[in-house]
């Protein structure tokens, strides 16, 4: 079957396919609209695009004709009446020691960003959002509801639908929201191929969270992770997982690019092992992708972090491990090595059958057909690229 790359950008959805031996891109919808994520539901074939209209809010868009036409999903994601969360906003405070203070308040939740969509069998569709709500469907996306077990989790202060909860949250924010608020965001949804009632999500900033009962109860899965930017490095909560991905055929293998390094689990996320290698530039970054068959094989696009957050020394490379992170190789052939400062966002790296592709916020799209050994340029003038997925 012909491979199709679905590319979400700040100004529309693009499809990339190989024609006559050349990978070619075309605008495939949503011209001028921010597209945070585009993916195919492998169970229904439907294409989903998560839009961020600058003026008109976040919208779910679907296509059942391979992108020839798109329409707004019949039911949009909306936070239900009474959904509230504990917000922590920084503000200027001249009287404080460092000139800033933190204002803790309870806010009514409204949708700020659609960030990721994940799929499972039996009509399961999960949408991760800012401010930290996971929305789920069991009917292929015809209807969605807020997952209350996660929303009301004790780590977020408990049930704010019925009262004021504990008044304390251990979830912090991400600057990735479209409304400017510093609120938590769910950017990773992993539906276990062995058991769809087991789902992992990753949150900026809280960490990795697991349900094994179809979303009724949730627990942290942050054992072994460490935050070298925080006073209590191994706290249960507060980890800034940037992205997690699970091996499809060895699903006990899960990879995580984190703000504070690279972590790997070969025991179903029960524990994580630090596998970064700063000498090889492998530490900070946003995306990670794992081979579908060999859970020890993964690719990253490292960046200098977190004080710079751009390609290391102006030379773009992909790092690959084939031994569960014990060793890493820098793959540079065909990628620009001078004045290349690309940043690759968390959803903008993907692999399928030895083909690897990634796109950057500078609008460059690169692809390898030999597991990253060599790279070709698909294009240099795309809008800022937010997501790259294989259809």
């Amino acid at each position, binding site marked *: 079957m012909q491979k199709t790359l679905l590319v979400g950008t700040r100004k529309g959805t693009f499809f990339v396919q190989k024609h006559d031996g050349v990978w070619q891109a075309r605008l495939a919808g949503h011209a001028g609209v921010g597209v945070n994520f585009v993916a195919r539901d492998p169970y229904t074939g439907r294409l989903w695009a998560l839009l961020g209209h600058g*003026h*008109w*809010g976040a919208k779910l868009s679907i296509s059942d004709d391979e992108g020839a036409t798109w329409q707004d999903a019949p039911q949009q994601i*909306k*936070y239900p009446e009474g959904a509230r969360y504990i917000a922590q906003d920084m503000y200027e405070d001249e009287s404080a020691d460092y000139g800033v203070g933190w204002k803790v308040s309870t806010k009514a939740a*409204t949708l700020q960003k659609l960030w990721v969509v994940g799929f499972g069998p039996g009509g399961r569709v999960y949408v991760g959002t800012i401010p930290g709500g996971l929305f789920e469907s069991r009917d292929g996306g015809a209807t969605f509801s807020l997952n209350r077990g996660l929303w009301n989790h004790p780590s977020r202060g408990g049930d704010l639908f019925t009262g004021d909860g504990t008044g304390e949250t251990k979830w912090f924010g991400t600057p990735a929201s479209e409304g400017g608020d510093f609120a938590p965001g769910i950017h990773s949804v992993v539906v276990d191929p062995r058991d769809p009632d087991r789902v992992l999500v990753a949150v900026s900033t809280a960490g990795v969270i697991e349900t094994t009962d179809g979303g009724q109860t949730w627990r942290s899965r942050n054992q072994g992770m460490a935050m070298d930017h925080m006073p209590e490095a191994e706290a249960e909560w507060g980890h800034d997982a940037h992205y997690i991905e699970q091996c499809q055929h060895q699903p006990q293998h899960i990879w995580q690019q984190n703000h504070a390094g690279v972590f790997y689990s070969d025991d179903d996320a029960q524990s994580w092992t630090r596998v970064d290698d700063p000498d090889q530039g492998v530490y900070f970054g946003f995306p990670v992708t794992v081979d579908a068959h060999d859970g020890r094989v993964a690719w990253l696009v490292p960046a200098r972090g977190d004080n710079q957050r751009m390609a290391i020394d102006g030379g773009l490379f992909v790092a690959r491990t084939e031994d569960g992170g014990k060793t890493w190789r820098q793959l540079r052939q065909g990628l620009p090595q001078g004045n290349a400062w690309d940043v690759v966002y968390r959803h903008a790296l993907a692999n399928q059958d030895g083909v690897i592709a990634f796109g950057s916020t500078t609008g460059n799209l690169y692809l390898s057909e030999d597991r990253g050994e060599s790279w070709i340029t698909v294009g240099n003038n795309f809008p800022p690229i937010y997501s790259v997925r294989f259809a």
Partner: protein
Amino acid sequence: MVTLQFTRHLFAFFPHLAEGQVQVQATTVAQALAALEALAPGIDFYLRDERGRVRHHVQIFIGNERIRDRRGQTDPLQPGDTVWILQALSGG
């Protein structure tokens, strides 16, 4: 009846609004928006968030006056008024 006028950007999503003059029966802006949703299902979530507040980058005018109540749109309407639904000049 009041007349609704739109930024043409909305016609990309709701093309039938461009076909003729849109008039609704309403005594407040909130009522006008509710009537509009009946004519163009889904448009309300483009203009207001799920708590009913006018989105940050959406502007609504009655004649030449910007509405005051962005939270509840209680601003009163008189028969013959024109309500302008526009987008703020923001973006990138």
